[in-house]
């Protein structure tokens, strides 16, 4: 029986960058989780490689994301971390699933799209920080695209898959995942199921953090049918259900968080006459989220807080090669997002108090983007990116309009036109040394919360936030410089960036407004300030002294200030992750060290707390073997070996991160 092996690559950012030898896009960092060798393309060949998971398999999507220098994670609970690029906020970055826009359903931003996705759903995660992100949408900070895994079609029937189970001691968390692939002739199917259950975790001081438990299940179905030479139709269906999710940093937990995602795509891998990959996709998703305070003691007033988001959209993307040196990519997309969230408060003996925290609203978005790459000669390349985006926001219910009339809303529609443009020049200065510089202008619309939010409590600073229907869009100017040096066995890369954002959106304290949330310190209304500046440096180095040893280190630093020179809030301090990995036959060992300096430069206006420095040490190992016709893989390790008590600066509340955690993961591939 012929078995097609699934080739899975570990994520090592620099390793992926090295793999780009053709007209590459240096501004993209890709975290490859699984790479599928498409054997069907070469009919009588089969790949005999079968290696998977050469490092610790990421426990959740967020764990994977946290290893990239460009990304930071804002944590609000034990899971449900919001990935942000550099120190931009979530409204300034596009977080997409396979090019699809998806909007959380929680007004307090407890559910960024990444919590509805498991690593087993994905093939790779692409982070784009400058002009190349325009293909995915308008933004000021860039885009994070989580690409869904695909199944390969084969002439012979092939059945493969993997089963994994794992346990983490810090939270007594169980994890189970099943991945089945079946391909035969023109069809391919992939089905996955994942279940996680985690109890309250123990932090570094030995205390159990209450309300940090969660339980969730994720199912996905992917079907692919070849419909011609190099052309196929694929359908992706994904359902994710979370329940009984604690949120230590907030005064209430999550009753349920559900997502239902569906997409149908038509893909042509290669065309004729220079046409490259073409893709058309139609999608829809629905996210539902509800808060639950029934498990908390001393609740002053019981509240129901359900929210819902429905997004549907489409996009078309094509590539065209012009001669040997030029490549053009064109994309058109459109989407509609509807949001609704309300709050009902109950006081015995009275009628319920009901209000819309997200007055029913709808956003229509449509845009077109172009990417042009010119290989000037063998050592230099020029990229030009452009995008035009049009978005319009409106309220859709009379009650929503009546509520906002209290703040002077008079029926106006908010319409935004966002042009973006960027130029990048890369040059190989000598055999090992390459430099790349880009400048550009970009922009982003305000988010629905920033426009229409109605007394949204922000635990970070303890204020109620109110939307401003007269907000202007943000406009950015950005410059980025990357230097990379790749002599033998070494890959060193440093990136510096500068981003100036005009009409930067922040909340401003309004003393005349009284709070709605019991315990809030005051009310802030969103407004545009003249400008803000963000700058930073990221570096990564990968050194392979021998074929069995890899040393890797990443470092990142960000600096932000507003137009008065005051520090912006939620800026991560200097952060460094270093690791040594040694292969010994079927076994590998890895030692890791993570350090963060103290963050004392905080926003006084937001009453942000400083955070102390910390160092963490991890040790991991993995072992692979074959037996009984199956591929076995064992991953185990200790994270936070010295049980340090620490908190990340971007975490909300005074909630510490887990202490010493032993984990064990067993996977079987067939």
């Amino acid at each position, binding site marked *: 029986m012929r078995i097609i092996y699934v080739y899975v690559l570990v994520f090592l950012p620099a390793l992926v960058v090295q793999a780009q030898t053709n007209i590459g896009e240096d501004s993209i960092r890709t975290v490859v989780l699984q790479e599928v060798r498409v054997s069907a393309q070469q009919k009588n060949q089969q790949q005999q490689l079968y290696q998977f998971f050469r490092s610790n398999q990421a426990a959740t999507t967020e764990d994977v994301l946290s290893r990239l220098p460009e990304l930071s994670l804002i944590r609000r609970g034990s899971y449900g971390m919001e990935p942000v690029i550099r120190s931009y906020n979530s409204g300034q970055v596009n977080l997409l699933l396979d090019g699809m826009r998806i909007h959380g359903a929680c007004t307090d931003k407890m559910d960024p799209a990444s919590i509805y996705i498991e690593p087993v759903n994905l093939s790779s995660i692409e982070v784009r920080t400058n002009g190349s992100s325009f293909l995915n949408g308008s933004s000021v900070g860039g885009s994070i695209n989580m690409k869904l895994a695909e199944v390969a079609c084969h002439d012979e029937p092939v059945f493969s898959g993997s089963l994994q189970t794992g346990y983490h001691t810090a939270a007594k968390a169980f994890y189970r995942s099943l991945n089945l692939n079946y391909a035969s002739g023109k069809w391919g199917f992939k089905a996955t199921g994942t279940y996680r259950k985690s109890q309250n975790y123990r932090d570094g001081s030995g205390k159990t953090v209450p309300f940090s438990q969660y339980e969730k299940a994720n199912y996905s179905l992917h079907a692919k049918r070849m419909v011609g030479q190099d052309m196929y139709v694929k359908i992706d269906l994904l359902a994710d259900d979370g329940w009984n999710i604690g949120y230590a940093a907030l005064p209430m937990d999550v009753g349920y968080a559900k997502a239902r995602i569906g997409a149908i795509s038509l893909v042509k891998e290669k065309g004729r006459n220079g046409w490259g990959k073409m893709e058309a996709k139609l999608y829809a998703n629905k996210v539902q989220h509800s808060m639950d305070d029934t498990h908390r003691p001393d609740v002053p*007033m019981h509240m129901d807080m359900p929210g819902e988001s429905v997004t549907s959209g489409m996009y078309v993307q094509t590539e065209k090669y012009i001669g040997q040196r030029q490549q053009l990519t064109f994309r058109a997309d459109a989407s509609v997002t509807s949001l609704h969230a309300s*709050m009902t*408060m109950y*006081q015995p003996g*009275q*009628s*319920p*108090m*009901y*209000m819309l925290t997200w007055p029913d609203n709808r956003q229509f978005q449509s845009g077109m983007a172009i990417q042009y790459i010119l290989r000037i000669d063998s050592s230099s390349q020029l990229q030009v990116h452009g995008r035009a985006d049009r978005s319009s926001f409106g309220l859709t219910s009379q*009650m929503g*309009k*009546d*509520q906002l*009339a*209290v*703040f*002077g809303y008079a029926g106006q529609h908010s319409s935004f036109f966002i042009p973006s443009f960027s130029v990048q020049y890369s040059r190989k200065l000598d055999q090992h040394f390459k430099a790349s510089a880009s400048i550009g202008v970009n922009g982003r619309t305000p988010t629905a919360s920033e426009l229409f939010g*109605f*007394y949204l409590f922000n635990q970070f600073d303890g204020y109620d936030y109110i939307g401003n229907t007269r907000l202007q869009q943000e406009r950015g100017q950005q410059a980025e410089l990357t230097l990379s040096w790749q002599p033998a066995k070494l890959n060193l890369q440093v990136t510096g960036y500068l981003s100036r954002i005009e009409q930067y959106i922040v909340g401003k304290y309004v003393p*005349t*407004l*009284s*709070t*709605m949330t*019991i315990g809030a310190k005051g009310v802030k209304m969103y407004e545009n300030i003249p400008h803000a500046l963000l700058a930073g440096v990221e570096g990564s180095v990968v050194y392979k002294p021998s074929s069995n040893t890899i040393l890797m280190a990443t470092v990142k630093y960000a600096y932000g200030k507003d137009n008065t020179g005051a520090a912006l809030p939620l800026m991560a301090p200097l952060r460094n992750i270093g690791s040594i990995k040694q292969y010994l036959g079927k076994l590998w060992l890895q030692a890791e060290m993570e350090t963060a300096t103290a963050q004392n430069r905080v926003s006084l206006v937001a009453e942000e707390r400083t955070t102390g420095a910390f160092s963490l040490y991890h040790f991991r190992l993995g072992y692979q073997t074959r037996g009984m016709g199956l591929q076995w893989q064992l991953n185990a390790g200790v994270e936070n070996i010295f049980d340090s008590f620490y908190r990340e600066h971007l975490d909300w509340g005074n909630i510490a991160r887990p202490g010493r955690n032993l984990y064990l993961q067993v996977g079987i591939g067939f």
Partner: protein
Amino acid sequence: MKKYFSVLLFICLSVSFFSCTKDNLVPETVIPFQKIGEGYAAGAAVKVELYATKALFTGYNSLYLALYDSSSNQPIENAQISLMPIMDMGTMKHACPVQNPSSTATEKLFACGVVFIMPSGSMGSWSLTVNLGLNGKQGKLTLPVTITDPVQSRLRSFVSKADNAKYFVALLQPQNPKVGVNDMEIAIYKAQTMMSYPADSSLTVSLTPEMPTMGHGSPNNIDPVHTGNGHYKGKVNFTMTGLWYLNLGFKAGNVIADTANHFEVNF
């Protein structure tokens, strides 16, 4: 006879035709209000019908009078009308604030208002006297009326710290509160004597809505200002459904008259 027959027929037909049309030419006025009472004002030869938007209650009642000539049944659209509500408490009698209608009807109705300051019951009984003057004749009709307390009070009173006089404050709007911006209207009257309660236009009113269970207010309210006949109009904003207190503060010039009153709104 034949000659006379056609003339006679013509006369009969025209008489019947005219008499029929006389009745058909007077359109039925459909009045969409509740009829409280009716009667004839002796002396003026007028039939009076009294309507209100709902059953009478303690507070400001919007009333409508329809007058008809008692012999021809034609609606009367011009008359001098003044109202005198009296509560007979046995040992004494007193009146209550009144807003007399203008002398010209609008759509055949004379709009007026009466602020009944207490309910009918063991304390006493109310009657409403309608005094009419038209075409040089005076008429009067007294109707018994029953006043009940509403579920949610729409009348407050206080003794002003500025001049020690008693004031009555009636809530007119919002009648159907909703989330968002609502019209807010009150009417203020001063108790000058037991029989005279003139409208007041001298007070400065401040409005502070509040949800007592939540402890928060709402933004961008507009304090009621006097617009005529003792009516003060402003805007009250509700950010959510539930129980709200409309806290009112009254000042006479720079002196605080009262700050202890509020109206409850629950929706």
